[in-house]
């Protein structure tokens, strides 16, 4: 138990550092003079699968693409839809027509001005190759109603449409009309963002450089989430691909690179007092979850799943899997956000109650059948949490067996109805998107992560997306939270964070869902 206390204590001290860094970042700038020019090197561990912003939902791509491309609408810092390339939107009373007016004078990297034809071509392409093309399913057709105006005719009123349309998961980016017919990944990588694409050498680097004719959005004073007034101070930004975490840290210490997308926590603790390095905590990065296969025994039995829920010691799992950067949270939303469901389900969370668990196992008629935990070696948190969960389940008499494979194999196995019972998964972008994005992965028409759909949860999801007001949707989400703690088909283990690191010479960096390389600059 001592080690967990130490990790927790380490977390608290690091959290303090993070809070200070964050507070400093958001506080009114004490007249720091921005410096134009210079080359910034950002490090990430893997190649972007694609630089076609709409055809991938990968984080490694988003890190780069969101500096090159922009969307009509996107999320603000406090996760509310704000216009970016759009001037605004008029939604008809019946919710069946959305009229988007576009900002004028916005230039693509090829020098052409963006107009309604580009928007229509981009969104029609999104319907074909968008990685989350279902977000345009409520749109019957898109009509050009002016040089700078497009109108969406909806199939039926969908009050949550604008939120879904603003999603950065696989963003509905606007690209030139000429790229409208291209296949996924075959566009010319031309966008409207503050940086333009220069070159991509797989396994080595992606280079982008400042777009001098960038059309700033002057409606705000500074950056705001994915939008706001963006200023590209740097001449050039290189995203270097360094797969080995030890080598990433060495490159940062040697001053060869400027920002690490993620620094391992042991290295972060070591460098905490290094004056040349600044740590940036991104506390709300992902949900650590444990998903059941509700289609096969013994995990098809709700009493068995409840036994697992009450048996788990979440603090132990989170401390080890996240290496100390975590928050205990039973909610299926981040605490204090719009859809925070309060204390519903808290009585089942982090109980570590072996006696109650054993009683529930007996009630379930569990006879020592094998309980196969599927996990992978590519995302270290998955494997670490699987090991701790398995040990805790063995302690209450469950015959837990770990099946650790690589990520593509894990994805393949979990798509099968049989052959696994539990699956460890970090949900990164889904919780950030709010309740709709998260619950969509657990309900029909998609294949729920836990395999067998729950009709009641499906109905609640429909109620959620059709809820006309935020208050109505908040009430629905409370019902969803209640339902999730009735069926125990997926277990919320905790919130895990991500630690970024930068050289002290990097100024203006604010942790976000991707490294915003605009509005940051280098000082000598």
């Amino acid at each position: 138990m001592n080690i967990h206390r130490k990790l927790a204590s380490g977390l608290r001290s690091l959290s303090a550092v993070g809070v200070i860094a964050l507070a400093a970042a958001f506080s009114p700038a004490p007249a720091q003079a921005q410096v134009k020019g210079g080359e910034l090197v950002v490090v990430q561990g893997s190649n972007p699968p694609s630089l076609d912003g709409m055809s991938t939902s990968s984080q490694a791509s988003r890190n780069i693409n969101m500096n090159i491309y922009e969307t009509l609408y996107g999320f603000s810092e406090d996760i509310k839809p704000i216009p970016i390339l759009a001037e605004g939107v008029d939604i008809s009373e019946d919710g069946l027509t959305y009229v988007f007016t576009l900002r004028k004078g916005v230039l693509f990297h090829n020098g052409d001005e963006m107009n309604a034809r580009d928007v229509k071509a981009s969104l029609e392409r999104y319907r074909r190759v968008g990685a989350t093309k279902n977000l345009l399913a409520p749109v019957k057709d898109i009509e050009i109603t002016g040089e700078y105006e497009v109108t969406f005719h909806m199939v039926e009123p969908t009050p949550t449409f604008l939120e879904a349309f603003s999603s950065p998961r696989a963003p509905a980016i606007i690209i030139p009309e000429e790229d409208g017919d291209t296949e996924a990944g075959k566009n010319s990588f031309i966008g409207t963002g503050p940086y333009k694409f220069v070159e991509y050498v797989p396994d080595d680097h992606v280079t982008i450089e400042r777009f001098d004719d960038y059309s700033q959005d002057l409606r705000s004073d500074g950056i705001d989430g994915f939008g706001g007034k963006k200023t590209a101070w740097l001449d050039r930004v290189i995203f270097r691909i360094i797969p080995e975490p030890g080598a990433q840290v060495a490159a940062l210490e040697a001053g060869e690179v400027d920002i690490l997308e993620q620094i391992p926590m042991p290295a972060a603790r070591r460098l905490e007092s290094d004056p040349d390095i600044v740590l940036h905590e991104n506390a709300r990065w992902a949900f650590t979850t444990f998903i059941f296969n509700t289609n096969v025994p013994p995990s098809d039995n709700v009493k068995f799943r409840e036994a697992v829920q009450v048996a788990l010691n979440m603090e132990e799992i989170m401390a080890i899997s996240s290496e100390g950067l975590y928050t205990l949270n039973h909610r299926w939303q981040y605490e204090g956000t719009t859809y925070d469901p309060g204390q519903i389900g808290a009585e089942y969370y982090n109980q570590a109650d072996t006696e109650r668990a054993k009683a529930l196992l007996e009630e379930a008629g569990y006879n020592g059948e094998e309980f196969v935990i599927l996990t992978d070696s590519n995302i270290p948190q998955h494997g670490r949490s699987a090991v701790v969960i398995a040990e805790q389940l063995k302690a209450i008499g469950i015959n837990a067996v770990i099946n650790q494979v690589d990520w593509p194999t894990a994805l393949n196995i979990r798509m099968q109805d049989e052959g696994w019972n539990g699956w460890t998964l970090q949900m990164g972008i889904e919780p950030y998107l709010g309740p709709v994005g998260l619950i969509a992965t657990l309900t029909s028409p998609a294949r729920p992560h836990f395999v067998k759909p729950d009709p009641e949860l499906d109905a609640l999801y429909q109620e959620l997306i059709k809820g006309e007001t935020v208050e109505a949707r908040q009430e629905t989400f409370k019902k969803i939270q209640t339902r999730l703690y009735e069926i125990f088909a997926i277990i919320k283990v905790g919130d895990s964070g991500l630690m970024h690191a930068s050289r002290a010479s990097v100024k203006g960096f604010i942790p976000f869902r991707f490294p915003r390389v605009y509005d940051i600059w280098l000082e000598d």
Partner: protein
Amino acid sequence: MIRFLAYRLLSAIPVLFVVSLVTFLIMWLVPGDISAEIGGIDATPADLAAIRERLGLDRPLWERALNWYGALFQGDLGQSYTLNRSVLGAVMERLPVTLSLAAIALMLATLMGMLLGILASVRHNTWLDQGAMVTALIGLSIPDFWFGIVMIILFGVWLGWLPTGGFVPLSEDPVGWARSMVLPSLTLAITQMGVIARMTRSAMLDVLGQDYIRTARAKGMRARTVIFRHGLRNAMIPIITVVGVLSGVLLSGAVVIETVFSLPGVGRLIIGAIQRRDFPIIQGGLLITACVFVFVNILVDMAYAWFDPRGRDDS
């Protein structure tokens, strides 16, 4: 010699065919495919099926194999699913990185290994012999990924003499290229030189005990001449054999070193392709790597002939 070369080249064809066939079968047995990578975690079974159909992954194995071999005979290794370029292009643009790494490491390993081996044999049963063999053993025993990180921390972070990783093309900046190759090739060489050192020592001890060496010494010939002209030259055959085998080991060892030092070589290309299930890259990359391996072995066989004139008659 030409007949010998032609024979070796022709005999390489079945080897390469078996390599490609085994790769095909292994990748067929491995669960998972690229559709999950392209479709993302919340793709529906229908989405995944559509991707498989578009890429031809729903076709039977024999049909995919026939298509691939058919294209290969026309010089086409296919297109990568993810890199937006041809397999041949992707491999060829990375081959210089891997080949230069392996070649420099091979030269360093051979040089350092032979020096250690000669030293150990000439000073047989002394502390120098023991020291050289312990050094060789340490090099052999330490894992290359760990040793690579130690080298990075020592020379890149603490001393700041060399870059911690990354690759600079020779055509862009020769000095930068040399600096970027020092640590990776040295790491690879040190972890592999032990085999050459031990083989050199053993072969030299054999040769140095021969009558003609005693005769040379009795004639009053200089020690250096005895060791290098009469001793080493006659000990070269087993050493060359080891160097030949090592060239393959270095090509495979380069995979780890490329990852640690962030070098965009063929090893990382293939590892990344395996992780994504980018079958055309795996298939084409392994075939080209096998070609390089076969070619190096032919060079080694030719070197036998150069060092041992009897071999020329045999050919």
